[in-house]
């Protein structure tokens, strides 16, 4: 696979790892947060920690749209799916996320709800067009990467005059989340001393690397936009180590083969046409973050599932013992949580970090727990 295999080369990996080991100062720690689950995945699946010196520590951020979907929104989606007239379409990832009472969309489907997996938003529009007698709700989730396809789906449904297609929108915004993590909210929550960020890959393809400039400047933290292949991650770590060593706090772009400073203007325009920012949106594990979510604009109200159907909108807390908040802020590690690997496992996740393979706890459980043994 061109542009994939080259960036998984083990010989180059050793070269970059050696450079990191050489350049990282033994007298200090490098606490680096990879925002994205894609990076978390690469780090865990390729065993990158084994290639890093002990003082370069990767902290897994909240960058998985599935993980940060609040329990209350899952409950709402299940309630929608259970309406007899509704066919709920969504991506495979979302289907097994547990809501309240360990119920998931998969289990609701087993109980008879009409839930269909799609691999693209336009498939949901097609299902609506083919089933005029059904109310098709597309449960949309994702960061800026995934929002443009949803926007195009809404525009297509409008163009076709479909009256049975709506979107239950859970699209969220990553720069706001980074700000949320960095801002000492004054709510007593401890925040780890982060030395830098490995910045989103595909999100940045859409929004451009400049989108992180405010966060970098405001909080004085270097950000390196990084591809999702393991060599990309290693190189970005090297770039962060260098920035830190040199006292810089810039937005750098390692993923130049796909990311530009301004991003994909066409995609940004269609998103802006269909969606607008919510005053605030809840992130599982992080709580409510201002201006961090999207909703459909008034002009597209007819395609908004939250307006067509009653949606409870309740906020449902995670298990009391769950330490996800502290883990996402880099203050704790998965093994510090009393529930980790005992009560809380990928089969029965108790908190956001265990929900998808890219969550901090799930990644550690699935790929890395031999390190605790």
């Amino acid at each position, binding site marked *: 696979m061109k542009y994939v295999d080259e960036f998984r080369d*083990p010989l180059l990996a*050793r070269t970059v790892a050696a450079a990191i080991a050489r350049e990282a100062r033994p007298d200090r720690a490098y606490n680096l947060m990879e925002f994205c689950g894609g990076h978390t995945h690469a780090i865990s699946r*390729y065993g990158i920690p084994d290639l890093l010196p002990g003082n370069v520590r990767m902290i897994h951020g909240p960058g998985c749209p599935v993980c940060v979907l609040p329990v209350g929104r899952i409950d709402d989606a299940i309630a929608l799916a259970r309406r007899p007239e509704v066919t709920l379409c969504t991506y495979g990832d979302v*289907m097994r996320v547990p809501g309240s009472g360990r119920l998931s969309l998969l289990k609701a489907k087993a109980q008879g709800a009409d839930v269909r*997996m799609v691999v693209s938003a336009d498939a949901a529009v097609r299902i609506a067009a083919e089933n005029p007698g059904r109310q098709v709700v597309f449960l949309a989730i994702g960061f800026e990467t995934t929002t443009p396809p949803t926007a195009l789906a809404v525009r297509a449904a409008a163009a076709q005059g479909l009256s049975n297609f709506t979107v239950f929108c859970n699209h969220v915004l990553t720069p706001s989340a980074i700000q949320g993590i960095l801002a000492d909210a004054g709510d007593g929550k401890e925040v780890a001393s982060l030395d830098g960020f490995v910045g989103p890959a595909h999100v940045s393809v859409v929004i451009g690397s400049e989108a992180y400039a405010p966060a970098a400047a405001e909080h004085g933290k270097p950000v390196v936009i990084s591809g999702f292949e393991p060599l990309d991650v290693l190189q970005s770590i090297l770039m962060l180590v260098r920035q830190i060593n040199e006292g810089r706090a810039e937005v750098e772009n390692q993923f130049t083969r796909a990311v530009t400073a301004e991003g994909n203007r066409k995609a940004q325009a269609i998103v802006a046409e269909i969606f607008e920012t919510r005053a605030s949106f809840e992130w599982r594990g992080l709580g409510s973050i201002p201006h961090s979510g999207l909703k459909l604009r008034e002009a597209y109200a007819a395609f908004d599932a939250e307006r067509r159907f009653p949606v409870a909108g309740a906020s449902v807390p995670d298990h009391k013992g769950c330490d996800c908040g502290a883990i996402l802020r880099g203050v704790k590690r998965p093994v510090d949580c009393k529930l980790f690997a005992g009560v809380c496992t990928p089969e029965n996740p108790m908190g956001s970090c265990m929900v998808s393979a890219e969550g901090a706890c799930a990644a550690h459980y699935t790929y890395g727990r*031999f390190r605790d*043994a």
Partner: protein
Amino acid sequence: MTDRRLFARKLDIARGAVDMTHGSGGKAMAQLVRELFAAAFANPWLDQGNDQAAFDVPGGRMVMTTDGFVVSPLFFPGGDIGSLAVHGTVNDVAMAGAVPLHLTAGFIIEEGFPLADLKRVVDSMAAAAREAGVAIVSGDTKVVERGKGDGIFITTTGIGMVPPGVAPSGDRARPGDAILVSGSMGDHGVAIMSTRDNLGFETAILSDSAALNGLVAAMVAAVPGVHVLRDPTRGGLATTLNEIAHQSGVGMRLAEADIPVRAEVAAACELLGLDPLYAANEGKLIAICAEEECDRLLAAMRAHPLGRDAARIGRVVEDAHCFVQMETRFGGRRIVDWLTGEQLPRIC
């Protein structure tokens, strides 16, 4: 199994329900089997924990195994439910080192199923049985109302005789043993996924569905003392190795670079966000043997057409946690865990 914490909590029998994960070959299925079926049926043969039971009959040692086949679509690149139903059961017999003897076949057919399709399935079974050298000696046909089945389900059961001195079993992996596979991983799983319209991809990959009794015969002739034989079907290589690790109370160390995976299988998995180590195989086996017999076994495997691409992929180690670990191709290390839930295509 040695890991008491394998299942975080007990099955909620009073309020729970069966869902797709209970059939996907992963941990949920292992738990259902252990806490519900094995608990109720408990007997020394079932408790062997293998895909087949071995027991003594007057004339020697016999094995018996059953499998239901519910594949969709019924006809897929490289095979169909008929040949698969023969191969799957012949293979479970063979994985005891046994020579398959007879099969039975139970059909559950949904009304409205075309006779032409039924004939195609049945002819394919007959051809597969002929090729594998087994006879389908008894059968049963049930018809269910439309909407209460899915075209056709086939349950085959097989028996076979184990040659003296041969006794592979999932609980016989020992630290120091070599771990081998007979060929590339994930072909069947990806071939099936490629037929699903809603996944929207196409490949030339064919299912590897095949009867492995000939290969096994060659293997046990070369190394009668082979410790473990098992076919990595549902749940793939990863899950099957975890099963064996827990059954034997050992750990494993794999080398990712040594595990054969076809380029197209890897690409399809990349596209869907899946891992080929969890994709099903229907014509491959895992063998575990003493290190000193590894070369002999590998040579015997490679000499057989169905073992041409056989490879040594790792070794058995001592590990109270029964972890299956892997040196990644990239140079790091990670756990290769049980399948959790179902393999669903991901967007993130």
